[in-house]
């Protein structure tokens, strides 16, 4: 790493003031949460910062809380390991806790934070598709106020977000899940267990009394420059009986809705096909498991 000036603010207000001050001066300033991605990029010389604002001492940015009505509020410095083991996350949605457990290795999960994960915007990451399937909102705060937006709108392209100068990701909000919602996250790993997914699929499903799809949300990881929310697939299923044919027809739309890169984890053509296959599998599993509890893949 090249030398940089380090700032370690103790409060969110102090961090926002520092960020604004550095950016007004034109400094190359970066925010550091768990540091896993940023230290890696800086050490490889892919990113050079003249100022680093380390957020770790800001207690307001730590924590995971259940919210009134059954939602969840996650502060950005919660680590993947804290989220994986959190009773509040388990109570909210076991598949979400399991998703955090799929990220890299326990060593990385101990250090890497959810806020850092989202701000880094690697489209092959595990939590974003699951959070999108759960309709997560994120809160971005600056000195002039805060705005919240659906998580899927935060991602613009590979490693690119809508975060504006002076803004800090301060909260991830999950709405209460309607009773009977089933959820799953499935990660296609043809190589090693600690790898990024070749493609991954997150889905939630609610079935009404006569077996029709009351609501469904599906999102993919590794399938484009951002996580992909498959609205067209959802529209093809909502209100319908989830027959094998109906699921197959809906999943058949997936290849044209994704734009995966060719890389060591597979060609773009292969990933398009696998995205369809794994979408259909996730929907089958949710339909066939009334309690929504799925074994670890």
């Amino acid at each position, binding site marked *: *790493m*090249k*030398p*940089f*000036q*380090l700032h*370690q603010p103790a409060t969110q207000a102090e961090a926002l003031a520092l960020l604004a001050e550095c950016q007004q001066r034109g400094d190359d300033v970066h925010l*550091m949460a768990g*540091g*896993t991605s940023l*230290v*890696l990029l*800086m*050490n*490889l010389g892919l990113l050079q910062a003249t100022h*680093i604002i*380390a957020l*770790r001492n800001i207690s307001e940015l730590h924590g995971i809380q259940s919210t009134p009505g059954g939602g969840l509020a996650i502060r950005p410095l919660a680590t993947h*390991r804290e989220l994986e083991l959190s009773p509040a996350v388990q109570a909210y949605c076991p598949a979400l806790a399991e998703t955090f457990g799929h990220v*890299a*290795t*326990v*060593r*990385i999960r*101990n*250090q890497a934070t959810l806020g850092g994960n989202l701000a880094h915007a690697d489209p092959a990451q595990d939590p974003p598709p699951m959070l999108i399937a759960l309709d997560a909102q994120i809160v971005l705060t600056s000195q002039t106020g805060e705005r919240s937006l659906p998580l899927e709108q935060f991602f613009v392209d590979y490693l690119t977000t809508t975060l504006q100068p002076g803004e800090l990701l301060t909260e991830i909000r999950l709405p209460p899940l309607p009773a009977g919602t089933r959820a799953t996250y499935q990660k296609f790993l043809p190589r*090693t*267990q*600690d790898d990024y997914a070749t493609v991954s699929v997150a889905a939630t499903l609610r079935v009404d009394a006569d077996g029709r799809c009351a609501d469904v949300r599906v999102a993919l990881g590794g399938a484009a420059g951002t996580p992909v929310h498959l609205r067209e697939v959802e529209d093809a299923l909502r209100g319908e009986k989830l027959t094998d044919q109906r699921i197959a027809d809906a999943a058949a739309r997936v290849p044209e809705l994704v734009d995966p890169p060719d890389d060591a984890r597979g060609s773009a053509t292969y990933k398009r096909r696998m995205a369809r296959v794994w979408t259909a599998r996730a929907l089958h599993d949710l339909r066939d498991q009334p309690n929504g509890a799925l074994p670890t893949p």
Partner: protein
Amino acid sequence: MTVAAHVRLIDLLRDDLGLTGTKEGCGVGVCGACSVLVDGQLMSACLMPAFFIDGTTVLTIEGLAPDADHLTPLQDAFIRHGGFQCGICTPGQIVAATALLDAHPRPTTEQVRRWMMGNLCRCTGYYKIVESILAAAESGTTAVVRQPVGIRAAP
């Protein structure tokens, strides 16, 4: 002591403190050779700025054995069960396994494999590593008297 902000923990340990038991393998958090415990939590020293450890307790492979005459049950089990071949990954393996046994004192084989998947062995000696960890879990937490290697009866 004072450390420059851009120094990584792995460099502080090896270059400034001379604690070379912690290895740098991949340098990108994948191989586990630089595994250390920060306040008991398993971390990659290659991805951590040294300033992160301010006010914490860091345990490296050098600090596991209670004294020069004893080994931890894990260290002893790795010797008895052939848990290493060339040895470069061994400090990381043992530090990671120490964290595993802290969290799960009697892990199943599956738990061992899952936890240890982040520690690569280029000699591919994985079966013996898993065997060593399971044996250490059975033998408890009491330190073992260190003996010259090579003259003991087989377990």
